[in-house]
């Protein structure tokens, strides 16, 4: 079984209070379906990127901590699933459902596998 990150992307300054009840319901239903299918390893929603702190190592060896996301970007990861599925195609099939349920773009990305047995 392989693990995939299915990350949902929110626009900058995304306001969680604008999420409709219908969307919440669809996401809830999708979560239930993933759990029922035995594929949901982990799921989590992130607070807005303004709550993020970025840490950078300085040439002098110190770590500099600044407020805000590491990258200036138009979109940030707002939440994610880690799914355990047979292959990329299956991860993408769940990704399709996530796009519809969350009404946001979704990124699907494989994890490194366990050390191969040979």
């Amino acid at each position, binding site marked *: *079984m392989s693990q995939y990150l299915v990350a949902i992307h929110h626009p900058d300054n995304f306001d969680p209070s604008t999420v409709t009840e219908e969307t919440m319901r669809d996401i809830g239903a999708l979560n239930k*379906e993933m*759990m*029922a*299918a*035995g*594929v949901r*390893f982990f799921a989590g929603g992130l607070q807005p990127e303004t709550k993020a702190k970025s840490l950078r190592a300085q040439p002098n060896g110190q770590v500099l901590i600044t407020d805000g996301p590491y990258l200036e970007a138009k979109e940030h990861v707002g939440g994610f699933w880690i799914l355990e599925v*047979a*292959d990329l*195609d*299956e991860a*993408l*099939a*769940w990704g*399709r*459902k996530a796009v*519809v349920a969350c009404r946001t773009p979704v990124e699907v990305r494989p994890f490194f596998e*366990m*050390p*191969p*047995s*040979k």
Partner: protein
Amino acid sequence: MSDTHKAIEAVWKIESTRLIAGIARVTRDIGIAEELAQDALVAALERWPDEGIPEKPAAWLMTAAKRRAIDALRRGRMLELKHGEIARELEFQQQRLGEAMDQALDQVIDDDVLRLIFTACHPVLTVEGRVALTLRVACGLTTAEIARSFLVPEKTLGQRIFRAKKTLSEAHVPFETPRGDDLRKRVESVLSVVYLIFNEGYTATSGEEWMRATLCVEAVRLGRRLAKLLPDESEVHGLLALMELQASRTAARRGPTGEAVLLSEQDRSFWDHAQIQRGMAALARAQDLGGGAHTYALQAAIAACHAQAKTAAETDWKQIVLHYDALLQISPSPIVALNRAVAVGMAQGPAAGLHALGALAAEPALANYHLLPSVRADLLTKLGRFAEAREELQRALAMTENRREQDLLTAKLNQTPLNDRSN
């Protein structure tokens, strides 16, 4: 295969179980439900490559299945439908059927999926039939995939599924979740099918490697699904724990040339520790529900002892012996007794192990089982009784035709001195 084709297969894989379960709620016959779902898949394969994959593929498939069902009704095929749930007049039937199916997918409830699994694992079917039908309707595997994983021709497997569906229909097996006393027995039947699928993938030494792995994956998934559907059944969690703990060692079980690596020799850093944790959680759940003394939970507890040992030397063999004692109480078998003797040998020393083996010599079921002399040889070697150990190894060699086993035994024979160690 084109990307669209692969995408359609993947959609089918994640949607087919609920689709079949939803249709079966209307048709009350999983054979017909499965055929209608297959018809819908054929329609998708025809249309999606041109039209693109619809936003809600599951709803599309259900609508396609509904159309096929109404066509079939018109042609009289659905008159076999049971339970008189669909009224007599054709017109009315079509409308009822259409409405029922429209509702079905929106409301595919966990119970539908559970009924589907219980029906596919019904005791009226042969064990082979249960396994094939479960992989087909509850895991979304194709006939070709199932055939490959069991090393039988696709045609044979197709007939097996056909016969199973026919048997269910002829025996008027209701599409329902059993209740009361019946539930316990039926859960056992489901769990034995799941564990059989798992073991076929885990222990078999032949066949296509990746198809074998698929069987393990599907069995663990089914186990997780069942744990959600039957959260209060301790044995479901016990079996899930056992499968998670065994599967956690998958990456460490094969050496560089594909040879089997024994548990004591495995590189434990290759074990999947997240999976071990899940196995431990499932085991705790089984025990909390009062099922710690059931057969799957006890086997899981033994696997847990191994999983928790950082090195082979740290294994808590005393605890393992206790678990085997309990296992012997509830399901006595010569194989369990043999494994127990190995554990006794580790926990209390080789002499005690030999003593535990003593009673098994007369066991007819083990008369031709190479592991009995092989285990005895190991214990004798540890005691320095090399001449007897060599005899046992030769006996074991004569009993196995498996090349890898023979190589292993020959290597041991070559390492065993000719004369006993003088103490």
